[in-house]
């Protein structure tokens, strides 16, 4: 059952019970009040008649009067003071009675205290009040009778009116409740539709509910959740795309040396060659195998580093790091006829020394490949940055964003000639990530390139 219907029904039930209870209380109080008023009026009437008649009897009566005379006097006086609903009796003798009923049958009176009874006679509700009056040692019973049927019919009429009014109130309340609730819950339906859209893959829908209540809070949280889902989906798609590109690049990079090895092997098998020629072909096979070996080693390093979120960093002397790099790079630089200039203004740095050493060796190797013999490579540690600068061929600006992608090479043939496989800077990116640093390239074609490693935390 829909929420608006549940709430409407519960509210209506409460309204019905409340109006029913109020009606009941008002009917009872009104009925009792009206009945009490009628009773009181009749009692007062009876009391006045009794007082008037007894006073008149006392003053007119003589001690020597006969019983017949006394009866006649009583009848005369009661007729003077009475209404048609007055009855005077003395024991079993009815002195005055213009009604059709015998009150003694319903209200036998034996004391001066006023008494009354309400009884049903011929489908009418009749109130009989009476009291006993003693004059000259003779007891008289004076009654006043009143028809109070209207009190009860009034209650019935009021009850019908209440029922009619309550039905109208209930119907109106029900209609208003339903309209109000549907309006209040409209934002919930909007939320539900947006949730359904999100579940079916539509991530760009946002809810425009600006209420300042719980539903508004829910809408804002829903939008935040959608933002998070959308960005995660986007990141996952990007990651999937990167992996696809990586695999296709890897396949391509593997294909070339494998094709070379296969070609050389077929040549060896199918062609008659001299010893020297065979040795040349075997050398080619060896070079391609070494290339595949380097490729797999670098891939393994990248895979291992990618699996780590952090690595243990120890505060190490920067000059010790740079000295280690210089020592390791010496042979490579000598082979290319290049020199390395080091300038250090940093004391210590939290680092994993081996990883950073391989990073700077990588950068120096790239700088060396871009430089001409006789050139200088600068390794400078300053502020929170360690940079490697060459004065080689430089790179176009539009290439800088892509050079850290696995297997990406600006000049593929030159890189292959120098033994490059396009994974060095991808590896450098991972090392920099583990050190919570940034790798920034600045380059100008024909002028040179600076690769900067910008650290966050410097001791």
């Amino acid at each position: 059952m829909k929420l608006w219907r549940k709430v409407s029904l519960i509210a209506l039930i409460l309204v019905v019970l409340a109006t029913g209870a109020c009606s009941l209380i008002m009917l009872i109080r009104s009925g009792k009040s009206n009945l009490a008023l009628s009773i009181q009026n009749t009692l007062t009437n009876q009391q006045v008649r009794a007082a008037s008649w007894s006073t008149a009897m006392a003053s007119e009566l003589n001690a020597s009067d006969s019983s017949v005379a006394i009866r006649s006097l009583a009848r005369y006086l009661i007729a003077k003071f009475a209404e048609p609903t007055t009855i005077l009796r003395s024991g079993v003798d009815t002195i005055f009675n213009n009604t059709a009923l015998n009150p003694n049958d319903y209200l036998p009176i034996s004391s001066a205290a006023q008494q009354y009874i309400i009884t049903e006679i011929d489908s009418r509700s009749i109130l009989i009040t009476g009291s006993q009056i003693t004059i000259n040692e003779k007891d008289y019973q004076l009654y006043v009778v009143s028809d109070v049927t209207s009190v009860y019919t009034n209650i019935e009429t009021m009850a019908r009116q209440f029922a009619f009014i309550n039905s109208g109130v209930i119907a109106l309340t029900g209609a208003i409740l339903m309209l109000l609730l549907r309006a209040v819950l409209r934002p919930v339906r909007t939320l539900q539709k947006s949730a359904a859209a999100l579940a079916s893959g539509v991530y760009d829908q946002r809810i425009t509910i600006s209420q300042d209540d719980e539903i508004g809070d829910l809408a804002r949280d829903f939008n935040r959740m959608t933002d998070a889902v959308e960005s995660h989906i986007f990141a996952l798609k990007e990651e999937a795309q990167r992996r696809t590109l990586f695999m296709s690049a890897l396949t391509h990079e593997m294909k070339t040396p494998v094709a070379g090895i296969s070609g050389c092997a077929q040549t060896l098998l199918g062609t008659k060659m001299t010893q020297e020629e065979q040795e040349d072909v075997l050398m080619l096979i060896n070079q391609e195998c070494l290339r595949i070996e380097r490729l797999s080693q670098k891939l393994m390093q990248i895979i291992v580093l990618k699996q780590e979120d952090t690595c243990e960093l120890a505060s190490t002397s920067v000059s010790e790091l740079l000295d280690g790099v210089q020592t390791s790079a010496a042979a490579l630089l000598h082979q290319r006829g290049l020199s390395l200039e080091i300038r250090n203004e940093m004391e210590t740095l939290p680092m994993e020394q081996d990883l950073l050493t391989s990073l700077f060796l990588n950068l120096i190797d790239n700088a060396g490949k871009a430089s001409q013999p006789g050139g200088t490579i600068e390794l400078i540690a300053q502020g929170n940055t360690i940079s490697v600068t060459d004065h080689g061929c430089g790179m176009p600006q539009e290439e800088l964003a892509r050079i850290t992608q696995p297997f990406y090479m600006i000049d593929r043939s030159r890189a292959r000639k120098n033994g490059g496989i396009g994974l060095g800077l991808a590896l450098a990116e991972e090392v920099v990530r583990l050190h919570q640093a940034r790798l920034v390239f600045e380059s100008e074609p024909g002028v040179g390139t600076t690769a900067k490693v910008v650290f966050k935390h410097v001791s």
Partner: protein
Amino acid sequence: MFHKNERPSKWGLLYLVLAVSILFSVFIVPKVALATVERTRGQIVTAEPPEK
């Protein structure tokens, strides 16, 4: 006995409760009011003497 989708909803009882409430309000309340007012019918009551 019932699958989840086929089980009668407890909320459907609200319709029954509403119907009973309306019937109570329209028919029972007047009867109860009359019965309460008529409670003293047929009883002889001695009126309290007026305060002097």
